[in-house]
C-alpha cells in the first residue's frame, strides 16, 4: 500500500468518524424569540371557507431562509392540516435568477413571494391576477399605498406579505437617559443633537455599507429616506424616472446625506471606514457608547448580539427618521408580495389565507415579524421593535413609500446605485458625479 493510499484511507476513516460522531442525535433548537401559533389560528373552523383541498399541493418560492422560514411555515401548518393541502416552501438566495429560469422554462412555482414589487412586472404575461375575493381582502387589509405596489397597469396581482419599516434610527435609550438627550423630531433637531454629542467627545453616528456582493444598499436607503422627506411627489418622480437621477433636488438630497456621512467629526472610525464596515455589525458601538445613532431598518432588531435588550427602555431601540417638513408623516418600507403563477383552487385558497387577518396575526406570534395588515393587533408581535414597527405600518395616517432601489430597474437599483454610493462615501466621487453616472446607467 502506497503512502498516498494510506493517507487517503486515514482521511476516509476520519471523516466517517466525524459523521458518525455528529449523528449522536438531532441538535437542540435555540429558542430565542420563537412564539407559538395562537389558539384561534389552530381552530379548523376558521379554515372551513377554504374548502377541502385534500391531496392538493401548492409550491411556494421565496427569498426567506433559515429560522425565518421555519417561523413562517409554522404559521402555515394549520392551513395544511385543516384543509388537507400540502404547501411546499423553498427558500433561495438566488431568487431573481431562479424565478427567471423557472418561469421561462415553464416550471414556475404556484406562488412566489417577491421581495421587490418591481421584479413582478417582468412576469406579467404569466402572473395570475387577483380574484375578486382576493382583491376585496387586499383593499380591506391594506392602505392604498400598499395596494398600489401590488398593482401593475391597473390590475391587482399581489397582496403584501411581511412589511418592514425602513426609516428607523437606532439609538441607546440608556445613553440618552444618562445624558438627558431627547429623541429628535425634525432633521434640524437631529443635526443639533449630533453636534451636541460630537462636542461632548462622542462620535454621534455609526454607519456600515458593506454587505458582500450587495455592498452599498444601506447607503441607498439613506438617500431614499432624505428624498422621501423632501416630498413624496419628488420621491415618486425620482423612482419612476420622471425626473432624471441627477435632478438638482436629488443632488441636494445626496449632499444633505453627506452632512452626516461625509462629516469626519460625525462618523465613528472615520468616513473612509463606512463602505468596508459590515452592515450587520455596524451598529454594535451604540451599545458601548462609542456612537449614538445608526440609520437601519426594523429588521436590524434581529442582528444585535445575543443578550441585548432591544426595547424602548433597554440597551438599544429605534426612533423614526425625522421629518423635514412640518406635518409630514412618512415611512420608507420594504416587504414581500404574494404573486401566483397558477389558478388552481388550492393556490387561490392559499393566497386568500396569506392575505387574511388570521394569518397575519398568527405569523406575528410565531417569530420576529412585522406587517402592514390592517386589523392585526401590533401587541401580538414577539419583540418590542416589531410591535413598534407594526404600529406604524398599520397606521393609515402614515404615508408609506417602498424602497426606491427595489423599484428602479435592476441595472440601477441593484447595481449602479450601490457602486455609486460606495464611491461617493469613499470620497472618490462628488454628489454631482455620482448622480450623473447613475443617470447614465439608467436603461
Amino acid at each position, binding site marked *: 500500500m*502506497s*503512502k*498516498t493510499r494510506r*493517507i*487517503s484511507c486515514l482521511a476516509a476513516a476520519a471523516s466517517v468518524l466525524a459523521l458518525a460522531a455528529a449523528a449522536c442525535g438531532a441538535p437542540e433548537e435555540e429558542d430565542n424569540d420563537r412564539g407559538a401559533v395562537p389558539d384561534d389560528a389552530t381552530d379548523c373552523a376558521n379554515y372551513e371557507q377554504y374548502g377541502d383541498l385534500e391531496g392538493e399541493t401548492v409550491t411556494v418560492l421565496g427569498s426567506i431562509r433559515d429560522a425565518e422560514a421555519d417561523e413562517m411555515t409554522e404559521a402555515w401548518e394549520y392551513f395544511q392540516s385543516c384543509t388537507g393541502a400540502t404547501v411546499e416552501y423553498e427558500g433561495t438566495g438566488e431568487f*431573481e*435568477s431562479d424565478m*427567471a*429560469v423557472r418561469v421561462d422554462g415553464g416550471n414556475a412555482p404556484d406562488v412566489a413571494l417577491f421581495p421587490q414589487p418591481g421584479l413582478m412586472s*417582468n412576469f406579467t404575461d404569466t402572473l395570475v391576477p387577483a380574484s375578486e375575493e382576493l382583491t376585496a381582502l387586499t383593499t380591506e387589509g391594506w392602505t392604498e399605498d400598499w395596494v398600489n405596489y401590488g398593482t401593475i397597469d391597473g390590475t391587482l396581482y399581489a397582496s403584501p406579505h411581511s412589511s418592514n419599516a425602513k426609516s428607523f434610527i437606532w439609538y441607546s435609550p440608556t445613553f440618552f437617559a444618562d445624558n438627558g438627550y431627547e429623541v429628535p423630531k425634525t432633521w434640524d433637531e437631529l443635526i443639533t443633537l449630533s453636534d451636541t454629542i460630537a462636542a461632548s467627545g462622542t462620535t454621534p453616528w455609526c454607519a456600515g455599507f*458593506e454587505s*458582500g*456582493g*450587495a*455592498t452599498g444598499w444601506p447607503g441607498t436607503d439613506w438617500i431614499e429616506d432624505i428624498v422621501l422627506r423632501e416630498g413624496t411627489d419628488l420621491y415618486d418622480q425620482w423612482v419612476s424616472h420622471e425626473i432624471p437621477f441627477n435632478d438638482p433636488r436629488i443632488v441636494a438630497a445626496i449632499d444633505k446625506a453627506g452632512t452626516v456621512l461625509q462629516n469626519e467629526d460625525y462618523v465613528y*472610525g472615520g468616513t473612509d*471606514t463606512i*463602505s*468596508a*464596515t*459590515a452592515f450587520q455589525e455596524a451598529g454594535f458601538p451604540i451599545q458601548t457608547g462609542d456612537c449614538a445613532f445608526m440609520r437601519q431598518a426594523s429588521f436590524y432588531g434581529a442582528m444585535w448580539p445575543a443578550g441585548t435588550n432591544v426595547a424602548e427602555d433597554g440597551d438599544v431601540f429605534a426612533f423614526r427618521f425625522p421629518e423635514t417638513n412640518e406635518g409630514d408623516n412618512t415611512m420608507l418600507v420594504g416587504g414581500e408580495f404574494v404573486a401566483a403563477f397558477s389558478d388552481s383552487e388550492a393556490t387561490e385558497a392559499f393566497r386568500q389565507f396569506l392575505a387574511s387577518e388570521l394569518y397575519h396575526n398568527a405569523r406575528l406570534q410565531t417569530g420576529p415579524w412585522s406587517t402592514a395588515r390592517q386589523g392585526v393587533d401590533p401587541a401580538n408581535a414577539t419583540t418590542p421593535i416589531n410591535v413598534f414597527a407594526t404600529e406604524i405600518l398599520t397606521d393609515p395616517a402614515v404615508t408609506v413609500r417602498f424602497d426606491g432601489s427595489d423599484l428602479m*430597474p*435592476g*441595472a440601477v437599483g*441593484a*447595481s449602479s446605485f*450601490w*457602486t455609486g454610493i*460606495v464611491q461617493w462615501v469613499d470620497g472618490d466621487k462628488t454628489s454631482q458625479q455620482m448622480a450623473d453616472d447613475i443617470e447614465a*446607467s439608467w*436603461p
Partner: protein
Amino acid sequence: MNISAYLDRFGLLGLGLVAFAAVLLALYGLAELASRRDRNRAVAFVFLAPAVLFLLIGLVYPAIRTVVMSFYDSKTENFVGLDNYIWAVTDPDALQILVNTAMWIVIVPLVSTALGLVYAVLIDGRAGEKVYKALVFLPMGISFVGASIIWKFVYQYNGAGGEQIGLLNQIMVWLGGDPVNWLNAQPWNNLLLMVVLVWIEVGFATVVLSAALKGVPLEIVEAARIDGANPREIFWNVTVPSIRSAIIVVAVTVFIATLKLFDIVRAMTQGHHGTDVLAHNMVEQAFRLFERGRGATLAVLLFLLVVPVVIYQVRNMRRQEMETR
C-alpha cells in the same frame, strides 16, 4: 428522520438503473442485429443514436436558440440586428467585462500551467512525490461553491482595529500593516479571484505534466548532455519541446474552464466592484436584468472565443489522420 424519504429516493435510483440497463441491452441487441448484416452505417447509427439525440435536444437546440436570441431585443420580440453586439463592444460596463475576461483567459491558463510545470519539475523523483502531488491535487475535487467558502476565510475583512478572521488580513496585521477589504479593492480584486481558480487548476496541470515528464526519452537527454548542453539548455531545448503537446492540452483545458467561469465570481463578489466576467455577466443580463438579447450576445461571444481552440483541435486531428493512414 423519515425512513420513507430514504426509500423513495433509493427506490427511484434502483428503478432508474434497471431501466437504463434495459436500454443498454436493447441497444446492444440492435447493434448485433445490424452487425450481422455488416452494415457499418446502421451499426454506427445504433452506437451514436443515444448520444446524438441527447446532444441535439440539450445542447444543439439551445445553442441555435441563443444565436437567434442575440439578434433580438430584451423580450425576444423585435429584431434589432447587431445592436446587442454593438452594445457589447462600446458600452463602458460591457467593455470592462471583456477586458476582465481577457485578463482571466490569459493569466489563469498561463500561471496555472507554469506553476504546474515548475512544481512537477521540482518534485520529480523526490521522496514523497506522490504526497506532494496529492496535496496540490486536492483542490480539484472541491466545488466552486466550496472553494468560495474556503477562500472567504482567507480574504475576509473586519474593520481596522477589529480581530481579523481572514488569514490574509491577519498576515497584514502581523506585518504591521492595516487590513484591506480585498474583494472591494479594484483592480486587484480581479487577481485575487483568479488566485482561487489557479489554486484549483494547478493540481491538474501538475499531475498531467509530471506524468509527461516521465515519458521524456532518456537517450535524447543523454545525447544532449554529451553534446555539452548545460542543464538549463536541456530543460528548454529538450524537456519542454518533448512535453509540448501535454503543455498545450493543459493550457487549453484550463482556458476553456476559465472562459466558462461563473461560480467563483457569483459566490465571492457577484460581479460588483469591477470584477464581472463574460460567463457571469451573461447570466446576470439574461436572468436578473431581463436583457435576454444581451445575455445571448455574450454567450455567442463566448462561443466565438473558443473557435480558435476548435480549429486547432481539427488541424491536430487531420495531422494524426495523415500519420495513421
